[in-house]
């Protein structure tokens, strides 16, 4: 299933909000990485990922999120993952990334 990304910026929250649907794997993670790099170059801010329609993520996708978190944390911003499906939440738990990102 293809990865679909919708993004918008909420200035009063200094927050890039990305809605992800589909699958993030070794093929699609490059596109997510490029988009996040573009957004951060445009404006460093919080990043919030709405993941209720994200059905799959692998280690390459997690690598993109780890990289983004490290980058924005330098400026005291935070990456948040909202509404992960059970399998995504399980992966965040076993990798310990639920302690690195905000997960709601």
């Amino acid at each position: 299933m293809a990865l679909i990304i919708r993004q918008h910026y909420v200035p009063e929250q200094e927050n890039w909000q990305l809605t992800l649907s589909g699958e993030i794997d070794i093929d699609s993670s490059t596109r997510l990485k490029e988009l996040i790099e573009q957004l951060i170059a445009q404006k460093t801010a919080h990043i919030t990922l709405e993941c209720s329609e994200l059905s799959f993520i692998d280690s390459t996708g997690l690598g993109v999120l780890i990289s983004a978190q490290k980058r924005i944390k330098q400026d005291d911003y935070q990456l948040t993952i909202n509404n992960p499906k059970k399998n995504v939440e399980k992966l965040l738990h076993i990798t310990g990334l639920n302690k690195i990102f905000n997960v709601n």
Partner: protein
Amino acid sequence: MNEKISLSVPNKTEYVSVVRMTAAFIASQLDCDIDQIEDIKLAVSEACNNAIQHGASADISYDIEFIISPQKLEINIIDHGSGFLQTAYKEPNLADPKENGLGIFIMQSLMDDVIIDTSNQLGTTIKLIKNIN
């Protein structure tokens, strides 16, 4: 009696989803529950990632074998590259995660057994085993 399904897939990222969907379909046919199917999909994807990243050039394929028995599903991902350097593998520091290096750890966390064989010097075989209830 074992039954075997084989695939040969180009060494390209766009085909990993084909292997993942095939694995999910086979697991569902074996009455695996949804959690087991998700585990198998992710572990197979990670093994394919490894084959692509550490395997041969893009014009060479890698192979996948699904071996089905009453007690377990065994999946072999066989690349023909220079070989994954298993001795260089370090378990990730989960308190300070890096962008790379989580794949093997994820496979080991999700499957009942993971065996990485580089002994033939002709590539790497990752054997993933999921016991079936």
